[in-house]
């Protein structure tokens, strides 16, 4: 699509009558890929609804509701003037931290963790939204540092910004989401042109701190999960069991899969967490290699559009925001699918679109909607 070049004539207000014209630059391809992935997620919700997908409160009907909400969120976010994010970055940051604190205070979860907050009877995981808000805050920060993007202090500042939410998520405890924060930070710094030597230095520092993290930060169950990844048989009934069962489910899917709702491994209860972290295993068992490949290709296509929006925006906020969303999707894809395929340790990281859970879907819709807002307004004079 040819870029629309606009000569800046004056700094007057963007005429209201041109508002509808914004939608001409709406990235239809990106929306289509996301929609396709969302539908795949609904299919998995259908198959996971244990024979009664239309019953009230089933995984499918809840999925359908979140799907509808996500489309609204996406549309509103696209219509939203994204530049307000820069203006209110600090407010967003404060709200973000407040939400995470609230989660810790009110949260409920399984086995001593507090990740979910109940709103009107619906479980909601704020840490999912926190990821997107953090991408916006970091993008605003990097934009404000655009003259000194290569400086070490930019990296230090970005890391300091990420630290409080990351720590709050880590104590929930949710190692997976805090890793996502790290990946997003790394991706955004890399894509906005941070000096490689500082990035490498930072990575070396984190590597050096690993023994300390292992001993002091990680909980027992997290250590066991990592160990059981290295040696699945050591813990056959715990997370090792999940890893082995998940591989059996995937392997038995074969080339074309067993068909929706025909997944024996998952339906007969061998596969744990089929609604959540291991939803991808159900997908791969029932849709097979071909279905898995289609989903992977959809993800690559989506990532391509996301990066393209960053490229086309041609300002550091757009590049940073797109990089953050792309890093988030890529990292979660690799970790979740890698886990299901037995090449990554078991961490509670959801697969965007596929894993059931309202917060994950809403967050990704918010992120993609804001990207649409960026691309729709790329020709608009800057503030």
């Amino acid at each position: 699509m040819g870029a629309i070049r606009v000569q800046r004539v004056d700094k007057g207000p963007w005429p209201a009558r041109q508002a509808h014209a914004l939608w001409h630059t709406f990235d239809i391809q990106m929306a289509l890929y996301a929609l396709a992935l969302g539908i795949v997620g609904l299919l998995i919700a259908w198959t996971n609804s244990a024979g009664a997908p239309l019953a009230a409160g089933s995984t499918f009907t809840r999925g359908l509701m979140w799907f509808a909400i996500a489309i609204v969120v996406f549309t509103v976010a696209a219509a939203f003037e994204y530049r307000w994010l820069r203006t209110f970055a600090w407010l967003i940051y404060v709200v973000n931290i407040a939400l995470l604190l609230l989660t810790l205070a009110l949260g409920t979860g399984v086995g001593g963790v507090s990740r979910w907050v109940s709103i009107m009877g619906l479980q909601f995981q704020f840490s999912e939204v926190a990821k997107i808000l953090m991408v916006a805050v970091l993008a605003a920060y990097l934009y404000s540092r655009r003259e000194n993007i290569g400086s070490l202090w930019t990296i230090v500042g970005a890391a300091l910004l990420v630290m409080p939410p990351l720590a709050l998520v880590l104590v929930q405890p949710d190692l997976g989401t805090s890793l996502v924060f790290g990946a997003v930070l790394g991706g955004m710094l890399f894509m906005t042109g941070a000096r490689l030597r500082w990035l490498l230095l930072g990575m070396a520092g984190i590597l050096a701190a690993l023994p300390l993290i292992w001993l002091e930060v990680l909980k027992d169950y997290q250590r066991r999960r990592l160990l059981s990844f290295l040696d699945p048989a050591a813990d056959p009934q715990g997370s090792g069991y999940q890893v082995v069962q998940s591989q059996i489910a995937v392997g038995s899917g074969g080339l074309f899969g067993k068909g929706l709702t025909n997944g024996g491994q998952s339906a007969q209860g061998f596969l744990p967490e089929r609604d959540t972290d291991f939803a991808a295993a159900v997908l791969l068992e029932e849709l097979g290699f071909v279905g898995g490949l289609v989903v992977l290709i959809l993800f690559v296509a989506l990532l391509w559009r996301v990066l393209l929006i960053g490229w086309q925006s041609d300002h550091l906020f757009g590049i940073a925001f797109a990089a953050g969303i792309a890093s988030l999707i890529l990292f979660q894809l690799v970790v979740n699918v890698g886990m299901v395929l037995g090449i990554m340790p078991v961490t509670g990281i959801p697969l965007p679109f596929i894993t059931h859970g309202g917060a994950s879907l809403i967050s990704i819709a918010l992120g993609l909607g804001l990207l649409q807002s960026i691309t729709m307004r790329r020709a608009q004079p800057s503030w």
Partner: protein
Amino acid sequence: MTDTQLGRTSPRNGLVIRFGVFGLIVVLVVGVLATRLFYLQVARGGYYAGLADDNRIAVRPLRSTRGLIFDRAGRPLVTNIPSYVVAVRPVDLPFEERPRVVSRLAMLLGIPEREIIEALDRNADLLFESVRIAADIPTDIARIITEEGRTLPGVEVSVEQRRSYEYGPLVSHLLGYTGSVTRDELAELGGVGYLNDDFVGKAGVELTFEEVLRGTYGLEEIERDGAGRVLRTVQVVEEPQAGNSLELAVDTTIQREAEMALRWGMEVAGLERGVVAVMNPQTGEILAMVSLPTYDNNQFVGGIAAEDFSALLEDPNRPLVNFAISEQYPPGSTFKLVTGTGALSERIITPSTKVQTGPYREIGGYRYWEWNRRGFGQLDIFDGFGHSSNTFFYQLAGSLGMDRLARYAHEFGFGSRTGIDLPAEARGIIPTDEWKRGLFDQPIYPGEVLQAGIGQGFDSATPLQVLNAYAALANGGKLYKPQIVRRILGPSGNVVRDFEPELIHELDVDPEALRTLRVAARRVLTIRHTYNLVQLPLVVAGKTGTAEFGTRDAEGRLPFHSWFVAFVPKFTADQEGDPAEPDSELAVIAFAYDSNTKGNAATEIVKYFLQLHYDLDVDLRRPDLLERGNFYGGT
């Protein structure tokens, strides 16, 4: 460029490579995922696809063989014997079939239907995990259930190994037992491979060495048919690894001698509880540890019947408690070791100092009596310890003061757990001014210092602590951690770990003081404080103790426990032992609970133990001293 026309630089120009690299990463990692996917689903897909659609592949753990326990002579104390177990996998038992299956099982197994239903409902949320219904079922019943398999959906019969404790009550307190893991324990152990219906050590070394004994479970992939029965093992993913075995420091021969002596003494004296423990002072090894009454740990194998368990719990003499380590009592005169060592080390007295004793010491308007209510005239430390003169040690304690007394008590290990590898060890109490202020908001009063000096008042200790203190005296000042386990052996008998003597600390006291007190401990016997113990044809040194407790009777007398702790200096056929030397290889303690007898019951028990242990050709037992009576006054 438009951008330059607009007067700003285009940030993306410098980032072409970065965008390229990011794109490359996306392609690479997704490529890796796709490759892995291809490997699992297409290349190796036949591995799973070859199995019929209706068949189900599951992984299940392979249990490891629990390690054995031997005594120091290599006698097996516990073995594993095969046992048939019936379990139900709830998911495979259709609800409408349940009443029929339950009633048939109840009939075959001879247990009430209610028990089976309760067991199933207790685990209602764990559909896919087998629920154990009965263990140890006879072979013919197991065969019938297996043959009826088609009409008993969800019922599984398997062979498990169960513990068989060869010596039963003799070593129950040391070995402990295993039992079904509880929900709480499972949560604590969670993730280290414990199963829902697993067994775990509950007491004794079965508990403290659980990790050593358990081994590592393996993992196998099995194929089930539509009815959930196991058709075959697809592959063993990981072989189970048998647990390691324990070789105890305890010798069952010595344990038997100790139990025999204790049972005799308790029976003659009509006692309800008692302890005998034997230790090698040179290493800290526990050679025997008997606490009576005891229980039979075989009762716990495969689950103890509810009425048996409540009988054990309701027994007023608490047979499940190991009184050698889990209860604390006033140490009485055995504690004079601490007071004497303190006074000598602090130069309050020398070995030749004479101290005037009398009928009582008066402090703050209270009279603290000599045990014979007359006094012994002027005594040095040897005779003071020998006669166990209270007024002698009151004066030493008064000069030392509470805090110095406590310091020496801690030197001998009082007031802290010895760290023996058995569960539920008591700590004991050594009062200090600070301790009392913290607890009662009051300072220590001078009279309490006197009481503390003779092991009364707040002082309390476990029999093992007293034994360990005298072991440190006997070996010249080394306080060892008492060792219950000598070696850990691998499945093939190889030594995995050798328990070296483990020093808690070296006593920070004057070594000469210890030498003096070893000689004084011999004097306890030679002045006939212990009647005929000195007539044993071997040199023994020791200390009696009479510890008052409880409430006074009509005549103002308190009931008491009696103590005797002794050590046997090394001797040969032509060279008798010398108590001055720190070379004893045997220390023994007897503790007789609530023993109002004419003589010191504990002394009689130790005497009989020594007769048995050294196979002496004499019988110096004095049942007359064990008659109930009022040997009141303390020794």
